[in-house]
């Protein structure tokens, strides 16, 4: 059993090792600059640059009817969603517009469009949508459908009015109120999402790099022959990297999320820090695991990409779990990032409290403890 004096020794050694990790990181100017960049500029770019709404989608209208009705329909495709480009004369020219990417949507209005409508028959229009970017393709398609739907309704109403049956159609008014992000400000979502993602990336990469560097240089041997135990070697690395990442989080929240995007931090910031620290600490186990497998920095980089890519897909950031097939949902349940994102958005945007988040946090802690335990066990086996 250790006496109290021993514990003080252990603590002193540990602090000295944390200091050493921070010192080494500080000397690595390239890494420091990179960290500064991602926790500020990168989050800013993600929040302001990337957008999931349709902006100035190019549409070419092949109007074969040249009637009042066809022009009326075509004129409804307006900025900000759509942008009209040259009207092709024939299907071949239309195809070319799509092939060359000069137009994203081609709308073909057939001859007799106005005549059919006038006669009360079904009139058809055709869209050709470039869906190489499936999200934008889908958005363009649904926007177009909405425009045509509204046109349809108006046509119906006009016809009803003309027959004297009263100017109103029965219908459901679609009243929607966005909660938590009233203006559906994408910068908020994207900025926070990027921050949470970066925290994950660095929680894995920084400790992995710190550990594999010692392996590459052979300094790990030197530590192993010292009185340090494996946990005493790894813990300071993880602690130091947690501190660094939390500093990055502070920078991002103060300068970008609050400073630029005016994200209202609804929950408790200390709670968010505590959650992040727990998350970084536990996720670093994955990084340590990678460091025991990899022989050098390059291999760590590649392994990290291999692990991070599925983690992100399964994080639920882009798709809610309910939308996924059952096996994928099971996988999602074991991704600690999934819980971190729930908790992160929960605290920052929804103002959730510790009690409300107990379940995801517990799951996160459990998974993280497993990862950390596995990393430590492999490290022990490899070196001891």
């Amino acid at each position, binding site marked *: 059993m250790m006496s109290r004096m021993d514990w003080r020794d252990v603590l002193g*050694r540990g602090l000295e090792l944390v200091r*050493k990790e921070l010192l*080494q990181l500080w000397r690595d100017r390239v890494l420091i600059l990179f960290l500064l960049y991602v926790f500020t500029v990168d989050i800013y770019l993600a929040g302001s640059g990337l957008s999931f709404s349709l902006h100035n989608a190019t549409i070419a209208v092949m109007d074969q009817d040249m009637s009042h009705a066809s022009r009326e329909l075509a004129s409804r495709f307006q900025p900000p969603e759509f942008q009209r480009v040259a009207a092709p004369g024939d299907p071949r020219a239309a195809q070319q517009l799509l092939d060359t990417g000069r137009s994203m949507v081609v709308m073909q209005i057939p001859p007799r469009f106005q005549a059919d409508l006038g006669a009360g028959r079904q009139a058809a229009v055709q869209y050709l949508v470039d869906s190489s970017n499936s999200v934008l393709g889908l958005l363009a398609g649904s926007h177009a459908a909405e425009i045509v739907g509204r046109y349809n309704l108006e046509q119906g109403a006009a016809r009803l009015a003309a027959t004297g049956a009263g100017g109103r159609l029965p219908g459901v008014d679609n009243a929607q109120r966005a909660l938590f992000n009233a203006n559906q400000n994408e910068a908020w979502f994207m900025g926070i999402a990027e921050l949470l993602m970066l925290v994950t990336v660095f929680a894995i990469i920084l400790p992995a790099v710190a550990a594999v560097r010692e392996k590459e240089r052979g300094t790990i041997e*030197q530590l192993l*022959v*010292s009185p340090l135990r494996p946990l005493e070697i790894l813990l300071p690395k993880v602690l130091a990297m947690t501190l660094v990442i939390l500093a990055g989080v502070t920078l991002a929240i103060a300068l970008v999320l609050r400073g630029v995007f005016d994200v209202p931090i609804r929950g408790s910031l200390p709670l968010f820090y505590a959650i992040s620290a727990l998350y970084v600490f536990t996720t670093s186990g994955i990084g340590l695991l990678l460091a025991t497998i990899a022989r050098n920095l390059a291999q760590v980089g590649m392994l990290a990409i291999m692990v991070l890519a599925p983690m992100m897909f399964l994080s639920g950031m882009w798709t809610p779990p309910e939308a996924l097939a059952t096996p994928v949902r099971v996988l999602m349940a074991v991704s600690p990032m999934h819980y971190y994102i729930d908790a992160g958005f929960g605290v920052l945007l929804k103002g959730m409290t510790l009690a409300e988040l107990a379940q995801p946090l517990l799951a996160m802690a459990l998974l993280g403890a497993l990862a950390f335990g596995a990393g430590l066990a492999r490290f022990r086996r490899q070196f001891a």
Partner: protein
Amino acid sequence: MAVAPAGEAVVRLRGLLKRYAARVAVDGVDLCVQRGRMHGLIGPDGAGKSSLMKIVAGVLTHDGGTVEVFGQAIASERDAERVKQRIGLMPQGLGQNLYAELSIEENIDFFARLRGVDEQALAARKRQLLAMTRLERFRDRPMKKLSGGMKQKLGLVCTLIHEPELIILDEPTTGVDPVSRRDFWAILDELVSVRGLTALVSTAYMDEAARFATATMMLGGRVLAEGTPAELLAALPATVVSVKCREQVEAQRRLGASFRDTILRGPWLRTVVDAVPGEDAPARARSAEARVREALAGLAIEALDVDAPDLEDLFIARAASAGVAAARFAPAPAPAKRMERTHAPDYNAIEARGLVRQFGDFRAVDQVSFTVKPGEIFGLLGANGAGKTTVIKMLNGIQPPNAGSGAVAGADMIRAPGQIKRRIGYMSQAFSLYLDMTVRENLRLFAAIYGVPRARRDERVRELMRLCDIEGIEDMLAGDLPMGRRQRLALACALVHEPEVVFLDEPTSGVDPVGRRRFWDILFRLARHEGVALLITTHYMSEAEQCDHISLLYAGRVVADASPEQLKAELAGRRGELWAFDTPTPQATVKALQAAGFAGASLYGTAVHVLDPDGATLPARVAGVLAPLGLQAGPPHRRPLTMEDVFVERVLELEREAAQ
């Protein structure tokens, strides 16, 4: 191939200059490599050997001077392309140019196809080269499963597959054990003398200079000395005097004060005594002895030997006159306080009893036992894979043994590995330092790790910087230090907690001879002044001579355990003394003597060495073998046996036993 007359220059360098950013790697070198000869480049890491060789091979550009290869001036990449097909380059590093996953044969085929060798010629050459290197049996073995020596032989085969006229081999013997090294040199000798190849070969081992027809010694990008081994030695008018003194510490202090270069070899002190100008050889030896006796006046001299200097002595002498800082070292100051360690007389600092370590089917360490006393310098020798590292790991408490027991620094290996870790220091061959931290930061970190009390830390750091001769560079990054200083810093880090036992795993690889001597000077102080027990492994046989006590490991077993002196005496008793004679036809002579059963017949440049118990009848017996073949040899000279001879003979004996 068109064989031009021997003696024609294949490579000619004039004022060669190569810079990497601000650092000058090659600084105005003139060099001429003659056809059909083996030309050596000898120098430590960073001497500029690799840069020079790459420039000659046409894979690196130069910044000044002229380069001529096969009479072709190399000024551009296109010039280099014209002669590339006639050159074979084997880069530094074990198996560096080979593919680990491919078999021996696949590696050879790959290089042949790369060079456009047609299939028929390839089959014939492959057969011939594999036979010559005795790799035939292992054709299908993946390269990664070869031993260091075999990897280097395969590298050589791949370099030769397109039949180059000039081969450039960058440190082919570094990290290879002495037996494989001899084998490699024998193959190379045959290639050069029988097939008329020209070879430019570099090495970091000074004693290998004796193997070249012409040797160029380099340091800091410049040429220190050049000539045949005989010419080089003749250029150092000095005598080596070895004395055995009971009061070794005092004797070393006095010799250090009077002479340029004194080192410790077990109970002996070996001093290089420079000649007084005008003395002839016999007078030189007499006066050297007299001057040493005078310096040691009043001390009891138990034994005294006079010998000629070797090539390492020459290197150090030249480095000193070339103004290399600290090639002349001050005598070790005695520590202010002598460490008080009182132990029972039968106390052993390290005790290994029947250690066994099994990895699956492979027994890495088999019944290893030895003991090391406080204040003793103990050498653990053996080829790569002989089990040295595993023994050290067990003694360090990192790896438990499968059987056997032991104690280190008074702590039991099995019951108290934690105690061991606290009482020992460890220095690895990688000089495991944090290169992005300063000298002081490194020392302070290790002091904290080993629990040196905060109040004592600064004082201890100062003491260590003085002991290890790294004062004045406290705030430099470890990564910016030259190898020698980096090595001494690594030693200092291993000593922060004043350990009783220090393990040093190949601590001098890559360090120049001057740096190595300074390092040994510190080890000497630790052992003799502070009573620290040192366990050291090394590939340099000249360093093995400096140990008090040696264990030789072979296939996980201890096959020799005694002092270097005893081991050499034992070899002399069993196999005879070492004799060298010059011969105009070295290759044919050595072959004839080997065939006639002369023990240990091997080639050193233009000299042949044999082990023979009877020097009186040796000339007649040698002549009896050579005369019928029309060969000649000069009179034999007796040479001192080296630890390399001991190592090689012992391992060859064991290999023969294993084969039977």
